[in-house]
Structures are given as C-alpha cells and as structure tokens.
C-alpha cells in the first residue's frame, strides 16, 4: 500500500514537471474517490509504458538487425511457422497483466460505488443534482434549500448525489473530487463523493447536450462543516422561496446565472425514483414540462 502511494507521488511529480506548472486536474485529487481513480490511472500508465517499451525495443531491434541493406544479396529468409514457447509467453504475460488490472479495477469499482471508507462513520449529505438545458439544479432536501449552478458542500463529509435530468442525458463531473456519472430523465443515479479539503473546484456537464454544452458548468465550494451550517442558515434567512412557477421558468432552455432558494422543487416535482421512476410508468412527471418546453 505504502509503496504504491510512493509510486503515485513519484509518477505524478514526473507528469507535473513534464507539463510545466499546474498539475493536471484529474491527477490532482482532492477527495478519496478521485484518489482511487488517480491511483488506478498512474498504475495503469506505469504498466502500459512498460508494454509500450517492450514493443518499441523489439521493433527497433528487428528493423536494425534484419534490414535487407545489411544482408548479403543471396540471403534467403527461412520459413518459420511459429513456436509454442513464444506463443505461451506472448499470451501468458498479457493474460497476467490483464488479470492483475482486472483485479484492481474490480476493487476500485466497489470503492467508487460506495461511501468512501474514510468517512463511513459520517452521515452522508444527500444532494439531488438535476439538469435542464443548460443548467444545474441542486436540491438539499434535508436543509430544504436549492441552488442553481453552484454547489456548497461540507468538506470531510460524504456526499450522496442523486442525479437525473429534465431532457437530454448529461454527465455530472467534478474532476478533482471524482469521476462522472450520467443524469437521465427516467431514473436517478447515485454518485458518492467527498472532499478532503475546503476549496474551490470545477464542475461541469461532460456529456454533450446541445448548443449550450460548453458553458454547462457549475462551481463547487467545499467549506468546513461549521461554515456549511452557517451558509445554510444564511440561505434560509435571506433567499426567496422556490415556487413552482419560478422553477418552470428555470426549466426553460437557456443559460442563467447562479441563484439560491429556500425549499426544493422535489416537493412539487419529485425525482424519477421509486414510484415516480420512468421505465415502467405510463407518464412521468417531467412530461408536462417537456411539452411546455416544446411550445416555446
């Protein structure tokens, strides 16, 4: 365990130096899930470089050694069918490598799909993150508040994002906290993230969803748990309530800036989960809004 950490740090410094100043976002993780992913990435870069190296060396050797210009004119290349020994090596070693990577991959899958080990004892904060062209709606059901296009989260506490969409498939992605997951109209996906440190992080929709895609971003601010509680209090004291009409205007396609509300849209427009799920149902609740959008 220690060793692979050292290797991770070593390799990331090399990559960092190679690329000049700022580390690449994905390789500069600020949360446990992103760390798992960065570690897998560095590990696979290491192993894969080794394979690339072998191929390059073999190729260079063959090309230098067996060039026609270096051989006598009457040299006749032999007929060689193949050899079981060589074949066993050429299949065996890749099989071992793939088996090892599969093992790592499966292990990491279970890690990124559950609450981070580090913060298991903490109660996860549940945030519904839904998209409508081309913005993000973040509902905090417990706190009973909602934000548009920005996220406030407590550091050192697991967050459970519930993802869904009012329209095309989008993908919720905060590179430094963890990789992405799709938000779709007919079901709710869960993504577990956590931030180790307070800070500002970039978040965006990573899945193409039409004209406004490039600007389909949001800001993430991680703060200490106390600051978070203060923020919630302040929102409750100052923000306007989110009414159904207001939310319907927000659903219309287009870009809007950041805004904050008390109450969440979940009360009048539940997420497509449980009995409101899409696959088996006749008409989902998004229907009215979808057709409204069409009228514009």
């Amino acid at each position, binding site marked *: 365990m220690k060793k692979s950490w050292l290797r991770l740090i070593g390799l990331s410094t090399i990559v960092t130096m190679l690329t000049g100043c700022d580390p690449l976002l*994905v390789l500069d993780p600020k949360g446990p899930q992103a760390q798992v992913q960065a570690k897998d990435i560095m590990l696979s870069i290491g192993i894969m470089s080794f394979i690339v190296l072998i191929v390059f060396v073999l190729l260079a050797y063959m090309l230098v050694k*067996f060039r026609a210009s270096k051989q006598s004119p009457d040299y006749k290349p032999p007929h060689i069918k193949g050899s079981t020994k060589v074949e066993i090596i050429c299949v065996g070693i890749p099989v071992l490598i793939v088996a090892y990577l599969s093992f790592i991959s499966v292990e990491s899958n279970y890690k990124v799909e559950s609450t981070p080990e580090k913060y298991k004892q903490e109660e996860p904060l549940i945030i519904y993150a839904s998209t409508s062209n081309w913005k993000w709606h973040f509902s905090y059901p417990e706190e009973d508040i909602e934000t548009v296009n920005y996220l406030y989260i407590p550091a050192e506490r697991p967050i459970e994002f519930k993802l869904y969409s009012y329209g095309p498939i989008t993908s919720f992605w905060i590179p430094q906290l963890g990789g992405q*997951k799709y938000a779709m109209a007919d079901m709710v996906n869960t993504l577990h993230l956590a931030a180790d440190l307070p800070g500002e992080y970039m978040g965006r929709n990573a899945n193409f969803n039409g004209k406004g895609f490039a600007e389909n971003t949001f800001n993430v601010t991680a703060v200490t748990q106390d600051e978070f509680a203060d923020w919630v209090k302040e929102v409750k004291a100052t923000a306007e309530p989110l009414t159904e009409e207001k939310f319907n205007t927000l659903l219309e396609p287009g870009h809007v800036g950041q805004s904050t509300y008390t109450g969440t849209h979940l009360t009048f427009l539940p997420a497509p989960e449980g009995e409101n799920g*899409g696959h088996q149902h006749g008409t989902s609740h998004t229907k009215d809004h979808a057709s409204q959008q069409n009228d514009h």
Partner: protein
Amino acid sequence: MEYFERFAIPHPSPAIYASMVAIGLTVIAIIVGLTYFKKWGYLWHEWLTTVDHKRIGIMYLISALLMLFRGGADAIMMRAQMAVPDNTLLDAQHYNEIFTTHGTVMIIFMAMPFIMAFMNYIVPLQIGARDVAFPRLNALSFWLFFMGAMLLNISFVIGGSPDAGWTNYFPLANNEFSQSVGTNYYLFALQISGLGTLITGINMIVTILKMRAPGMTLMKMPMFTWSSLVANVIIVFAFPVLTVALTMGTFDRLFATNFFTTSDGGMDMLWANFFWVWGHPEVYILILPAFGIYSEIISTFSGRNLYGYKSMVGSMVIISFLSFLVWTHHFFTMGQGALTNSIFSITTMAIAVPTGVKIFNWLFTLWKGKIVFTTPMLYSMLFIPTFTIGGVTGVMLGMSAADYQYHNTMFLVAHFHMVIIPGVVFAMLAGLHYYWPKMFGFMLNEKIGKWTAWIIAMSTLLAFMPMFFSGLDGQARRMYTYSASTGFGLWNMLSFIGAIGLTIGFILIVYNVIYSIRYSPRNVGSDPWDARTLEWATPSPVPYYNFAKVPHVISTEALWDAKYRQHDLFPEPYEKIHMPNNSGVPFILGCIFFAWGFSFVFGMWIPTILTTIGIFICMAHRSLEKDPGHYVPVEKVKATESKLRGSQL
C-alpha cells in the same frame, strides 16, 4: 411558406454559400465535360452498370478518398476553432454540426468504403475466383452505400446537418431537442448505406466459403481473406441491430412513437445500448481487414511467411466473439453498478490479449527476414508503435473506475484516434500504395510516398497526443469553446498544428497520384513487389475474368510456391468462361433509394409512397427477369491473355 422553410439552410453563412456555389459549379463542369468528350456512354456501360468486383472496388476507393477530404475539411475547421481560447470562428450550432458530420462521414463513409474497396478488389483475386458470389447484388451494395453517403452530404445545403454527435444519443436527437431535419438525414443515410453493408457481408461470406480455388482449404486462405471473412461475419451479426435502432429512431422522430423519449415509458439508455451493440463490433469490422492488409504487406516485405498463422486466425476469431461482449464500456457511467461494470471491464481488457498476440506475430515476422522499406512497409512499421499507444490507452479506459475520469473527455478522443488512424487509415494508405500497381498498372512514386508516410505519422502524434493531457486536465470532448483560464490553450494549439500536418500529408497523396499518373513508368509487370499470394498471379491491370485458367493451391502462399517451389499454379487447360452481364438496375434502384430517403427526411409522403412502389418494382423486375450471363469463348480468352502477358503463359 412553412413548407419551404424546412428546405432552407438553418445557418446561412458565407462558407455554406461558397460550398453551394462550388458544388453547383462542379456538377456543371462534370456534365459539360462528359458531354464535350462524349463520355456518357462510357460512363454508363463501363462504370454505372458494371458488376465487375474490381471496378466496384475502385468506385469504393474513389468515394472513400473523396469522403476523406470531406471529413478532413470538417476536422481542420474544428481544430482551428479550438486552437485558441474564446475563438469565434464557428458558433456552437455550427461546431456541433461539424463534429457530427465529421464522425459520421469518417467512420461510415470513409473508413467503411475504404475497407470495402479492398475487400471487393482483393478477396476474389486472393481466393482464385472470377467474381463475388452475387455480382449484381454487389453493385447494389455499392450504390446503396454511395446514395447514403450523398444523402448525408447534401444535408448541410438543404435543411441542415445532423447535430447530435455521430453517436446520436437520444433524447438529444429527438424532435424536442434537435428540431431541424438534420437527424432525419443521419437516420436515413445510415439506414440506406447500412443495408448495402449488410448485403456485402452476406455476399462476401458466401464468396469466401463457396468460391475458393481448388486446394485452398480454410486454413490455407491468405490472411487478408481470413480477416475479411471474420469482419463480414461480424457485419452480419451487428448491422441488423443498427437497422432496428435506426428504424425505432425514425419512428420516434416522424411518427411520434416513444421508444427513446423522456416520457411515456420511453427509455433513453436503450438507444445507447443498441448503438454500441452495433458500434463496438463496428470498430472491429474496420480494424480486422486493416490487420489483414498489414499481414500481407509485412510478410511480403520481410521476404518471409507470416509468423504464427494459426494464432493470427485464432486471435481474430476470439476478437470477433469478444467484440460483442464489451459494448457497455461505452457507458460505464450510466449507473449500472459495480458488478456490471466489473464484468465489462474484464471482457474489455481481455480484447487486448489477442490484439497483443497479433502485434507480436508481426514483430516475429520481421525476425530473420529481409526487410525492404517500401512505402507500404513504412506505413506498416509506423503503425506498430503508434497503434500500440492507442491500444494500451484502450486498456486504461477499460478500467471502469478510472474511466469515470476519462469518459467524455479528450482522453477518449485521443484513444480512438490513436487506434483508428494508425490502425485503419495507415493500413488503407499502405494498401493503396501496395495494390496500386495491380489496380492501375503503374507504381505510385516511392519518394513522395515515404515523405508522406512520415509526415502523416508524425502529425498524427502531434495532433492527438496532446489530447491525452488536456483530457486529464478536465477538457470535455465536444466543447466548442473554452476560456483562457482553463489552460487548455497550449494543448489545443499543438493539436491544431498536427492537424495542419495531416492536411499536408493528405494533399501530398493527391499530388503523388497526379505525379505518378504523369511520370511513372508503365508495364511494371504482374508482380512488382515479389509478393506471395494469388492476387499477384494475374496480369496487371487484371482482365475482367481475373484468371484465364483455374488456379490450384497447395499453401497459404500460392504465388510463392509457383515462383520458388516449382508448383504448377495453373494446371488446367483453357475453357470458356462464364461471366455475369452488366445491369443498370442496381444503379437505378440506388437512385430510387436516394429519392426515398430524401422524401422521408422531409416527411413528403406522396413521393415516399411512389418511391417505395419504385423499389418494389425493381425487386419484382429482378425476380421475373431471366439473365443467364454470358460465356467468353476460349479464343477470346487466349487472345486477351497473350496481349496482356506477351508469351509468359
């Protein structure tokens, strides 16, 4: 008025008006030229109605090269837009249309016809046959492909191009979010050309299984034929899925069904599943014939037999099987849970093993060989290191937890270009230089050819390697702009320079063709490379009946045996040869399909019904027609042969 609005261009811009004028002028120039030189008859009798697999192959080749430039123009516009932050060369809508048509054109209308060109031209020659099993159906396949391609290509001047990505994910591609007719074009262009591909698949399988020369058992087939066989089997299993998906998409858009909608029980992830159940095998349909071409070239220019023939065949069969078991890796992030992702992660990485076997076999084919660096060989040698980088990054993507960070980013874009360009495009260019003398009777210039190969390979690295970094730095794919603060500028500028290099490389290929047409010596003989397989046993250019006498084969390297092992390749006496007749019906049917697709795109129901009837009339005509073909008498065969070969035979 509303009716005509649908035909209008949604984004009028000087560039589009300029292309309209250019298209108009080209069409006029072609018509005037054909009339002036009195070539209408020649065009009709020799090309439009031909059923000769070699001519069909050449028509595929020309289409593929044209589409390479069409797709390339899109690419350079995209890279130019991205080269600097906050660029305003293109707006979002324009950019979206361009990357959509770029992807669609490159995969469906450039790479596919390129491999079809070689399969059509080479396979019958390599197995010692006189044509494919169903020559007329083969012509129909070509015309369906061609009309599909044309349908997509007129989209940007009539009604607007598709703009939902070449993956065309619903619900984005549905009426609600893609309101122009662009996506209808996508659906019909792919549907029509896909039918052509499916027909080719069946045709080629029957050809390879039924029409091999005496002595050529399955395990004595040359590697390119093997790769074509496997690719066509994949076609026959994969393309029906595309047909069904496109049909359902069409129903959603034109008849308000709800297969992929966001309401009324529609299921958006169903499209992604269908698309990739076809789409992943599709990338192997492209790569396997390319591998076949590399195998022929590497063995020829190493002066050696292919190392590990059996494991080459075995690995292709395993790849074809696995290619159907990995589609979910294209949406690891769809929320299917750790177990499903784990399974698909393992099957995905498993593909790297048989792929690796092939790489090592090529390396060992060089071993103890006598390597000659011709242009085709240079492409093949540049392919190995570049493709290896693309392949190992595929393994990285296959680790699903890590893919959460790569998915939808430039890292992915870098991966698939680093496999498709060295894998498919280099192979096709290598094949182009290799088979050119067989097709046209003279060589392409070697010096220009080698320069081009180096420029293209280095530019590929420059254009796509930076994307690995910008992807890891958080640049999502398909963003039409970004701000300077993101720091993506440098990577994208490098990438743009690489794209310019690629453009220069492709222009040099055209220059090489023109130069060689003018200056290359003619009559290079039937076997200019000292090759090993049967296609080089025919005179160049190849007579329409291919082989005057039926060849007999004793190993995978029929010509080599004849040249150096005293094997009598043509023991049979001359006999009259049965050949199929030309027919105008495939071309006419293709045109009707074009009109059918066009009227469907705009929902013009009367023409749709009329063209549908037209299609059935053509099919009925074929069913009732008696066309026994014709015989070429022995004297004529002898005369042709002695003219082509002198006193050789």
